[in-house]
């Protein structure tokens, strides 16, 4: 059972959350111009990283807000919790240009402005994560 720090509610059991898969995948800017290959990429292809992965979670039986998380997919250690719409708070995010920082605004359902929290145990909500 993962113990997840919701930015709004603090540490809660994994069973209160819903998994949302890879974070920072923008909706295509010009859907009409996409080739079939590009549509396939958007619809069916997601990174399947072994190691630190930026992913979305929803606190579905709590505050019902979405947020992003960096988690190691081998050890399952949670490395950071940060608001949607902000870049991933590690250097890896800056180098993965395809799905990285350029697109973060597009997946945002919450417009967070606060600095991302790098502590997995922190229960303090980054400002701006609540809507």
């Amino acid at each position: 059972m993962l113990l997840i720090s919701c930015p709004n509610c603090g540490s809660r059991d994994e069973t209160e959350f819903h998994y949302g898969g890879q974070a920072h995948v923008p909706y295509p800017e010009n859907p009409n111009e996409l080739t079939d290959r590009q549509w396939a990429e958007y619809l069916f292809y997601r990174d399947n990283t072994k190691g630190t992965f930026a992913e979305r979670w929803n606190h579905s039986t709590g505050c019902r807000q979405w947020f992003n998380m960096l988690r190691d997919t081998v050890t399952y250690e949670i490395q950071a919790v940060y608001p949607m719409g902000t870049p991933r708070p590690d250097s890896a995010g800056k180098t993965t240009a395809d799905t990285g920082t350029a697109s973060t605004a597009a997946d945002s359902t919450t417009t967070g402005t606060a600095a991302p929290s790098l502590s997995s145990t922190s229960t303090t909500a980054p400002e701006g994560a609540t809507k």
Partner: protein
Amino acid sequence: MSTHQLPEHPDFLWRNPEPKSSYDAVIVGGGGHGLATAYFLAKNHGMTNIAVLEKGWLAGGNMARNTTIIRSNYLWDESAAIYEHALKLWEILPEELEYDFLFSQRGVMNLAHTLGDVRESMRRVGANKLNGVDAEWLDPKQVKELCPILNISDNIRYPVMGATYQPRAGIAKHDHVAWAFARKCDEMGVDIIQNCEVTGFVKDGNRVVGVKTNRGTINTEKVGLAAAGHSSVLAEMAGFRLPIQSHPLQALVSELHEPVHPTVVMSNHVHVYVSQAHKGELVMGAGVDSYNGYGQRGSFHVIEHQMAAAVELFPIFARAHVLRTWGGIVDTTLDASPILGTTPVENMFVNCGWGTGGFKATPGAGFAFAHTIATGTPHKLNQPFSLERFETGALIDEHGAAAVAH
């Protein structure tokens, strides 16, 4: 007891050779699919100068972690064809491989608990019959006759409203299946190389010409990827992407019991499936953990959930104990169907995406994948399972038949 009293070590079933500097083909992954592929490459296509590279030990991945359910009652024509081909091979393999791996055709029941389930199940029975797959619809009384320990009363949360039943389905001993294939491969000259991790590929332009491993570089004309949960990692090394997400999938066994459970029961709706192994353990599994994971373990609430479902369906299990739980890494696709065919890299082929249910397909997948590797083009059995289907939209949606992990 002092050591001189120990009996002779039994014969090894295969050699442990050093990797050669080159092979005609290299299979990455020593699970069931990699071994079955090598077997059919050697047997059907005369390719014996080949190697299976396994980073750990043989069948240490999903092959010896699965719950061994074998059936072919999938909905769509494409799936019925390949899974039924596999089932027909299971029926002859113990003799062909000269190894009794306890394939037991004790039947598999898929329970229906809602009107939606009932309709979907009846539709699937109809589709199965049209495809020559044995399938029956059972009402609750017939369910009880076949499996007396099942609770078919009305006063449970999700009463049993009936079931589909495939009499030819069943279970087998997974580790023995791997050993049976390995022994025959070895006899035909195939090198099975354990503790040999593929760390990269050598390419000439867009053509693969070699495999880098922790035991040196191996030249090869063809590469077949059969790495299950690690397929994305290998594809990335080779420079292409797969529409795969790797998830933990868990299972568990109880202590040994008298034979009480004569068949295999699966329930998509309350999310559990149960059989009783030959030795007597109750073997149970359920769905994947929701998050991506390569840890070969999952969260305990998934186990709790499946136990709750099991105890409601089988009240006599309430006093049984969980002896062992474990997890594997399964490679899921969005249409719950595998990917089996060519890749964007020349001479590299991929067999993955079997997710929670690829054990049953082992011989069929190996047969078709061997054909694909040997001839460079897919067999008609795996043609529909190409990577291109995600672009053409010709998806093969098996969520109905595959919904609970199995």
